[in-house]
Structures are given as structure tokens and as C-alpha cells.
């Protein structure tokens, strides 16, 4: 088997975020680079939030998937060379978040001046933007809490960062 970057990325689509098990690390933008030199595969990863307790699990899951597919000559690095941004989440990833009931983060291009950016997050249940931010901090570091004034549901949003 000839290893290519695309082939590795395809394999890694299997690795999901342990706290949001519908989105792969590839779609989440956490996999920042793959290098193949001779038979050696290097996978670079970057944390979403530096205090995220799921990062060590994610790294181990990447190692496990590589091993399972017979790629045992590898190095998996978790570092900050690339700073993670919610803008790195793919369109497929955003669709998966919405289906899961999490409002996907708005594209921000590194301009987050105040909480207005998440004041009226789009409700993942009814698509209304007549919503209210309840708190910028939710059940995990990457989520905020909202209430939809249209359908009356409480919902969470993946924070733009």
C-alpha cells in the first residue's frame, strides 16, 4: 500500500471528538498536518482549548487508528504550531454539529470584539435567529448556552474562537 496524505486523512475521519461524537477530528480542524517521509507518518494536531481534557484521548485515538490500519511507523504530535480556530471547522463538520443539535460557530476571520457575535446564534432546531445568549460558558469549554425565543428550546452553540 502506498501511503498518501489523502489516504491518512480518510483513515482519520474515523476518529471522532469524544465529547461531540458526530464530528471527526479532520472536520474539526484539529489535524493540522500530515507528513510522509519514506514509510514514516507524522500527524500534527493542535488543541481546541488548551484546558480541554479530551485532547489526550483524541491523540490516543489517532495512534490507535494508525496502528489498526497497519501503520506502526508513526509520530503523533500535539502542539501549538498552528493555533486552532473555529474557522478551521469544515462545512461537513458544521452540518454535523447542527444535526447533533449544536449551533455551528459563525465565521469570524479573527475578529471577535464582543459577545454580540454569539448574541443571536441560529437555533439548530428551527433556524430562527430570534434567540438569546444565556452564557458564553457551557457544559464544555467550547460551548455557549442559548435560548430560542421562537421555538422555546434551550440549545448550545459551538463558540467562535
Amino acid at each position, binding site marked *: 500500500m502506498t501511503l498518501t496524505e489523502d489516504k491518512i486523512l480518510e483513515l482519520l475521519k474515523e476518529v471522532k471528538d469524544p465529547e461531540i461524537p458526530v464530528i471527526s477530528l479532520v472536520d474539526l480542524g484539529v489535524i493540522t498536518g500530515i507528513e510522509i517521509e519514506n514509510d514514516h507518518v507524522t500527524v500534527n494536531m493542535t*488543541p481546541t*482549548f488548551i*484546558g480541554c481534557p479530551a485532547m489526550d484521548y483524541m491523540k490516543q485515538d489517532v495512534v490507535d487508528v494508525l496502528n489498526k490500519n497497519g501503520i506502526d511507523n508513526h509520530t503523533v504530535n500535539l502542539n501549538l504550531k498552528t493555533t486552532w480556530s473555529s474557522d478551521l471547522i469544515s462545512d461537513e463538520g458544521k452540518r454535523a454539529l447542527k444535526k447533533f443539535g449544536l449551533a455551528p460557530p459563525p465565521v469570524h476571520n479573527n475578529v*471577535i470584539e*464582543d459577545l454580540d457575535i454569539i448574541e443571536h446564534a441560529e437555533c439548530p432546531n428551527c433556524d430562527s435567529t430570534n434567540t438569546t445568549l444565556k452564557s*458564553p460558558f457551557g457544559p464544555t*469549554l467550547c460551548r455557549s448556552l442559548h435560548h430560542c425565543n421562537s421555538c422555546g428550546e434551550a440549545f448550545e452553540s459551538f463558540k467562535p474562537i
Partner: protein
Amino acid sequence: MTEEALKDLLYKIADDLLILGHRNSEWTGVGPLLEEDIAFSSMAQDKVGQSLAFYNLLHELGEQDPDTVAFTRNADQFHNSQFVELPIGEYDFSLIRHFLFDHADYIRFSMLADCPIEELAQVARKLKGEIKYHVMHANTWIKQLATANEEAHDRLQKSLDEALPYALGVFEPSKFEKEIIDAGVYPGEKAIEEQWKENIAIVLEQAGLKLPDWNTIKPVYGGRDGKHTEHLQPLVEEMSEVFRVDPSADW
């Protein structure tokens, strides 16, 4: 710049984050409303995680591993400012401290993001984005509560007046100040302090809270040199209790 100077800088940043993170966690389960309980718990988790990033940098410079550094020192070996070790008090004090401290750390990490030491700059760039949420959270609540009713306003004003001498202690210059500035690591504590005064004044004015004449306030220094209030040692003992009972504990 000597390695000693760099370690001094990393220790004070890390210790501030660890100790304030621990203080924030004391709101878990007892916050004034559920959203604030969660917010302070989240910020606690952020800050403890952020301190780990700095203890890791120190470990790479030859210091002991992060758990040993965090859990085996006594109070007089910590370099945090006294501000972060003060008890959580009433919610108004914790909110004011969160506001004053996070505004300072946001400026600190914005400056360090341009630092020529790439490993440090990478961490700073990462933290900048996270701490922005802490700052936005503090601004929202300060403005909302200070303009809510007289009692809320007066409580915040009183806490602000009590907190300011300690908050200025965050900017205690280190003995390596000149060396660090000359090396271009960041523009130094004085520069953070000046920018901080401008930034907090904008929000406090919107909130209708008064800042006294800065010349009348005497900063509480000493924390960076290991001089602490009586509140730090009990905190350190509580924080390290599990580690001391079983250093290999895992969960």
C-alpha cells in the same frame, strides 16, 4: 537574556493562573445562579489548563514535571500575585477580581504573542483567544450588575476599592524587568499596567463605577518574591491533598 529571567517570568504567569483557577473552582456548586456556577467552573478549567502549558514550558527548561511543581511547593515558593490568592469572598468581589485580572492577562498575552521566543509566543497566541471570553464575560456582568440597582452598584464599588491595591500588585516589576524588556520578550509590567488602566476605565465608566486617583493607591507587592497572605498556604494544602496522599492517583 538569562534562562533564570525567563523562568521567573513563566513562573509568575503560571502560578497566577493555577491559583486563580483554583479560587474560581470554589464557585462550583455554589454560584449565585446556574449560568455563573458553570461560567466560573469553566474559567477555572481554562486557567488550570493554561497554567499547565506554562509549567510544561518550564519543564522543557529543566524544571520538575508540572504535577510536582504544582503540588509539592509551599506557599512561600509560589510567585503568584497576592491578588489571586485572596478568598473568593462574596460574588461581587470574585466578579471584580475576575474583571481586573483577566483584563491584565489579556494584555499580557496579546504582548507575548509577538515574543521572539516562539514556544512562548505560540502559547500566548492560543491563550489570547480563550481569555477574550473571560474578559467579555466580566464586562457583561460588571455593566449589568452595576447598573441594576443601588445595592448591586454599591457592592461592586466597595469591592473595586478593596481590590485595586492588590490588582496593581499583579504588575510588580521583577528584578529581571530590564533584561526581559531589552530582549524584546514583551514591553514589561509598566506597559501592561498603563494599557490596563485605559481598558478598565472604559468599562467602569459605562458601568457607572468610579476609579480613584491612581496616585492615592499603594500597590500590594511581594507575591512575586514569595511573600503571601495567610490565605495561600491553606489553599495550597487543599489543592495538593490528593497528590500528597497518593502521588500516582489517576482518574
